[in-house]
């Protein structure tokens, strides 16, 4: 038993933290809501009961997952590029521009549009990457600023060249059917982008842990001096991880446009890049864990929406509740002492067990 708990400690702790976060939310909801029971149900259960809400979770998780693994790649190499948000925005704009100005058969158009979007994102990641590798400029600041540049540049592009004049709002022309990702379940908006995201996560997992490049990336993150000493080209890695980050985030943005909106219709930057940081950290920068983290975050998001829609808890409080849950989940030291005690007991037991071997 003890051994079991120890082996799965992180998982168990995360589950307890989630439970505790939920208890705190329940408390908050009890204070705020006049119909707490119903509110709770709306928050936690409702998203799981309706087909459309379940599909919302999947839809929501898709771009977050893309951004999460994107950021994890860079973070693994200790490159704190937080520019997934910008890459996502600019890629969606560029991808849209390309999609609406070309026409081809669907099986060429879709991959090509995704490629163009990923390319735009890659270019966006290249800039801070190059600045860091070549001149040592802080990628954190550069990428942060480039998020704003991406936002305004993306709007500029759409507003001035690809704006649908028929529309009463700032939106691009509609993507041609050949550049739309199909929604695969009648009555929902779930689209094939989610499979792309899952595929990308598996691919990145494989890349990080089973290829030489992944090894190079991880070692660079652990210790640059060591990696250079071992012959790894740090310069290349620093740029490459940020390029990969940009490309993945860009795909995340574009699949959302291709699968859900059908046209570029963002007035505000959608924030998936920031949520990507959250899931990357919750998922310990591990692609497989990030899948779970993304779906969890999407679940909390959709729960929040349904709470807001059905019950009397204002939208902003939902944000507060989400913040509380996130902090608890990543509280490393939470239950730390308990784990230590278990470890000590276990070590003593083993020690007693094989005295002769010692």
């Amino acid at each position: 038993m003890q051994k079991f708990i120890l082996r799965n400690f992180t998982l168990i702790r995360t589950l307890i933290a989630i439970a505790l976060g939920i208890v705190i939310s329940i408390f908050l909801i009890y204070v705020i809501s006049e119909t707490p029971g119903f509110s709770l149900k709306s928050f936690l259960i409702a998203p799981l009961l309706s087909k459309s809400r379940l599909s919302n979770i999947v839809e929501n998780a898709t771009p977050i997952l893309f951004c999460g693994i994107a950021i994890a790649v860079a973070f693994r190499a200790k490159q704190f590029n937080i520019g997934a948000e910008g890459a996502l925005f600019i890629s969606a704009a560029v991808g849209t521009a390309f999609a609406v100005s070309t026409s081809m058969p669907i099986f060429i158009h879709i991959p090509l549009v995704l490629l163009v979007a990923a390319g735009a994102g890659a270019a966006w990641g290249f800039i801070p990457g190059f600045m860091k590798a070549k001149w040592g400029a802080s990628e954190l600041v550069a990428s942060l600023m480039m998020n704003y540049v991406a936002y305004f540049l993306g709007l500029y592009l759409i507003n001035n060249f690809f704006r649908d004049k028929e529309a009463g709002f700032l939106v691009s022309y509609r993507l041609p059917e050949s550049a739309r990702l199909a929604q695969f379940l009648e009555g929902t908006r779930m689209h094939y982008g989610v499979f792309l995201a899952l595929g990308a996560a598996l691919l990145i997992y494989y890349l990080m842990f089973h290829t030489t490049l992944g090894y190079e990336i991880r070692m660079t993150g652990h210790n640059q001096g060591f990696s250079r000493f071992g012959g790894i080209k740090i310069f290349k890695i620093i740029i490459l991880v940020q390029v990969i980050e940009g490309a993945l985030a860009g795909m995340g943005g574009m699949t959302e446009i291709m699968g859900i909106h059908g046209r570029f219709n963002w007035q505000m930057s959608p924030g998936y890049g920031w949520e990507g940081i959250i899931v990357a950290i919750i998922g310990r920068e591990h692609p497989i864990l990030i899948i779970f983290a993304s779906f969890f975050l999407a679940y909390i998001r959709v729960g929040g929406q349904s709470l807001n829609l059905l019950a009397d808890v204002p939208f902003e409080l939902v944000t507060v509740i989400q913040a509380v849950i996130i902090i608890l989940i990543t509280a490393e030291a939470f239950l730390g002492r308990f784990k230590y005690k278990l470890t000590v007991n276990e070590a003593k037991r083993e020690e007693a067990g094989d005295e002769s071997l010692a």
Partner: protein
Amino acid sequence: EQEGAGEAEGEQVQKEEPLRVVLYVNGTLGDKSFFDSAHNGLEMAEEDYNVFAKTVEGSYDSSRWEPDLTQLAEGDWDIIIAGTWQLQEYLEKLAPMHPEKRFFTYDTSVDYSKEGLDNVYSILYSQNEGSFLVGALSAMITNSDMDKANSEKVVGFLGGMDIPVINDFKVGYVEGVEYVDPDVDVLVSYAGAFNDPAKGKELTLAMFDQGADITFNVGGETGLGGIDAAKEREQYTLGVDSDQYKIFKETDPEKAEWIVTSMMKNVDLSIYRGIRKHIEGTLAYGEAEVLGLAENGVGVADNENYKRLVPKEYRDRVQEIADMIEAGEISVGTAIGK
């Protein structure tokens, strides 16, 4: 169980079932203009009629609007109100699937050439026409010898973002200015955000520095910064959507004083009117209604400050122009659909 009844979905057990109306805003309340106004209209109706009303804020996250609306349509609402062009497409999809429900949309119209939209009522406002009027007024003021009018022929327009709805105001405003005096320069600044009053203020100050003697603020919270700049510089300014003089009269009279008038977009009245007509059974579903100057959908706020600051001669001229627009003698351009 006692609790169950009044709770939850709020089935109110009364003699007569109230009309259940939900307003879905694809943003948040608190903009002191557009969405707040819609919300007020609904509250007015709730007060006067047997209506159960609820407003849901959908935030600016566009990916959740469609599912939210779907869920509302599947709920037990009688009327679902969802405005702005951004929700139009979703309504066009949802309304035919729920023929027993009624839908309002405002500030846009669904495309009635499509099938199954007989249960949707659309309200359009001619904000370009209203803006034309305040534009004309601005041109008169900058040419005038009013207290704070300077010799330079410059007026300013502060937009939240460079997007069609905002530009519809701008186009009307600029045309109004030019109609009165083509030599007047219109400075146009966008803040790039609707939530940055400090930047709105800074932009407006800069326009004053460049010789503007009156500015028109169309930018939500950002626009409020513009009004603050007017107060600081003691210059004229124009409110938008609601009568912003009235809003500030109590809490900040010094500020209110500089709001010459506001370009009214009477979303509240129009929604109230729609619900009233629905109850009376006279509302024409299946078509769009354009509320312009004539229908009191837009207009110029006629309050004591307007009368105090603006000479009668100008006010009369504004009224004259309004009449000409109503009569179709002047046609105002628009930024929407081009």
